[in-house]
């Protein structure tokens, strides 16, 4: 070993020391990178890849071009001003016959029905009544007779819009927007324009929960940071125990407490305060209470560490310079807790934005947040494009806020179990 080392050194002795050091450093860096690589590859497969796939789905639009390939090709150079020519009608008739034979019509019908309500009926009635390929030159008449919708321009612009391979349709729909027959972006029909409302609701619930957490968390963090360590460590258990308790247990506990025959209503009734049970759950109140309970530790812990870092000497100095306690608190103490307030509030807000389980279990229909709709469109109605588009908007909002959070706590370690 020593001999090998010496001969190796001999051979390299000609090389300038600087270069050798650089080479050794590069080898070390490569080794370090090799250690990180397994995790990076793992996350690529189990996290980044799936999310990229979801983002792709929000613009992917290949159903119609798969089922109606000739129609899509025939419409490629159609200007969309008048009805398309006979060639497009013949292509459509041939596509419909092929799709009927292979049983793929439903795929296109589902996609086109998202864009124009009733399109499914148009396609199925045409497929049912089209006996055979129309004689050359008569496709336009034949289809128009089977369903007059084929004599309308919007039917055709809908197909052209859905020709893919990529579309802004779902992303626009997630923002309550759509394209009209002339291709201009306009507000979506009122019965489909529900997502801005859902985003606003998500924002309002998250903001309310953040404010509640700050109001409740500030005095607790102050108390814990001011008390001698022995006592504050003991009280810290009151914060850490809920933090480690399962989200499902805590949500379940709130239902048991707040339901109409629950512990709170029973006690109030027994005390003679109320006659009729109060409606405390399956509404906005229940959602805010349960979410505040779950997220409060995420506010208290960053506030506590920022307050712990404030030297009491500053307050003593302010007092000795004659500042009244309130002034000293507002002008000396509070400004120093601002990074903690910012970090805690952002953390709670970011986590609240993506909440799903708690609102799903303790909220009413009008309290469901954006995650509920993403889950609904993924598993129930299988409108994957829209689910992905709503997910893309939520992801963007979360990442932007996380970026701000990262800047805020730069250098600090970020810890905390995320439960939602």
């Amino acid at each position, binding site marked *: 070993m020593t001999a090998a080392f010496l001969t190796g050194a001999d051979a390299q002795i000609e090389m300038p020391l600087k270069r050798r050091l650089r080479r050794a450093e590069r080898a070390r860096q490569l080794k*370090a990178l090799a250690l990180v690589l397994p995790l990076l590859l793992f996350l690529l497969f189990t996290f980044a890849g799936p999310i990229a796939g*979801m983002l792709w789905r929000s613009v992917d639009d290949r159903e119609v071009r798969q089922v109606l390939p000739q129609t899509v090709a025939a419409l490629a150079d159609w200007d969309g001003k008048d009805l398309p020519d006979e060639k497009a009608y013949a292509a459509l008739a041939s596509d419909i016959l092929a799709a009927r034979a292979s049983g793929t019509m439903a795929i296109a019908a589902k996609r086109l029905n998202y864009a124009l309500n009733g399109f499914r009926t148009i396609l199925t009635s045409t497929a049912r009544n089209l006996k055979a390929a129309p004689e050359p030159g008569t496709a336009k008449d034949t289809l128009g007779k089977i369903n007059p919708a084929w004599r309308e321009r919007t039917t055709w612009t809908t197909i052209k819009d859905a020709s893919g391979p990529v579309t802004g349709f779902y992303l626009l729909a997630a923002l309550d927007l759509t394209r009209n027959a002339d291709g201009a972006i306009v507000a979506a029909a009122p019965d489909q324009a529900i997502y801005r409302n859902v985003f606003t609701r998500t924002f309002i619930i998250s903001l309310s929960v953040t404010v509640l957490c700050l109001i409740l968390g500030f005095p607790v963090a102050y108390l814990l940071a001011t008390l001698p360590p022995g006592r504050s460590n003991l009280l810290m258990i009151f914060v850490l125990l809920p933090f480690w308790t399962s989200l499902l247990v805590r949500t379940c506990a709130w239902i048991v407490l707040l339901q109409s025959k629950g512990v709170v209503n029973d006690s109030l009734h027994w005390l003679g305060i109320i006659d009729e049970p109060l409606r405390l759950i399956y509404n906005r109140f229940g959602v805010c209470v349960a979410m505040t*309970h779950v997220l409060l530790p995420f506010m208290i812990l960053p506030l506590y560490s920022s307050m712990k870092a404030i030297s009491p000497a500053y307050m003593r100095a302010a007092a000795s310079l004659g500042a009244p306690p309130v002034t000293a608190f507002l002008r000396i103490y509070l400004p120093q807790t601002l990074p903690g307030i910012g970090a805690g509030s952002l953390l709670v807000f970011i986590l609240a934005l993506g909440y799903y389980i708690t609102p799903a279990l303790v909220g009413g229909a009008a309290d469901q947040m954006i995650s509920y709709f993403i*889950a609904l469109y993924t598993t129930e109605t299988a409108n994957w494009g829209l689910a992905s588009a709503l997910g893309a908007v939520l*992801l963007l909002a979360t990442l932007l806020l996380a970026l701000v959070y990262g800047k805020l706590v730069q250098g600090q370690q*970020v810890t905390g179990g995320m439960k939602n």
Partner: protein
Amino acid sequence: MSDNPSLRTPSQRIAWTATIVISTLVFIFLIAPILAIMPLSFSSGSYLTYPLPGLSLRWYDDFINSPRWMTSLKNSMIIGVASTLLSMVLGTLAALGLAQWKSRLKPLVLAFVLSPVVVPGVITAVGLYFFFAPIGLTGSYLGLILAHTALATPFVVITVGATLQSFDTNLARAAASLGASPLDAFRRVILPLILPGLASGALFAFATSFDEVVIVLFMAGPEQRTLPREMFSGIRENISPTITAAAVILTTVSVILLATMEGLRRRNERLKGSSA
């Protein structure tokens, strides 16, 4: 609690009293719901109200004799332990690498490694649902273990990374210069030093997997339903006292995890105190 040294004026005393009163109420708010459901699981009646008609263990009996609940407990354990072990390996390697790696890309890589913690659960779940279904990983233990490992590994990277920050790299060099192979140096020098960080990372990782329900909702087949998943459907349908028994079992696991964490922290503080 009037021994706070800064309480000289009456207004300060009032403010301090107010802090104590409000904090006490918040502590009650935090703890009371968890404590309130515990006695209900020992009720002999089937209504979730006080006063209890009598005490019994019938709901625990129900839990133990229900194949659904017992399978879900077993599934939670399998998935929790497997994803903890996997995240310990991946997370420790990455933390060791990141500690030595010097590059302008490092903050970016670190942000990427930690991002599974920040991204909303539903988004990860939907992405995995689309991605894993075509390759047969939905409705399988492997799929859930991989997904939970992705969520849990950031905690191991953070906790091991934190212990490495106070780690003297000369120790590893000393081991190497004394002839230890890299594996030996890791096993006998580095591992004992990062062990506290690794242990708390493992606790976080296990808690993350044990409590996770959104991904399980999307990806688990009937065979892989975990304890939180079973509680979710139980709460949706009708809260029976058996759920409160399940809640008490889950909470007991949390308390054990928390107590272990506290023990680790105290031991760590003691060691730091003695070396200073």
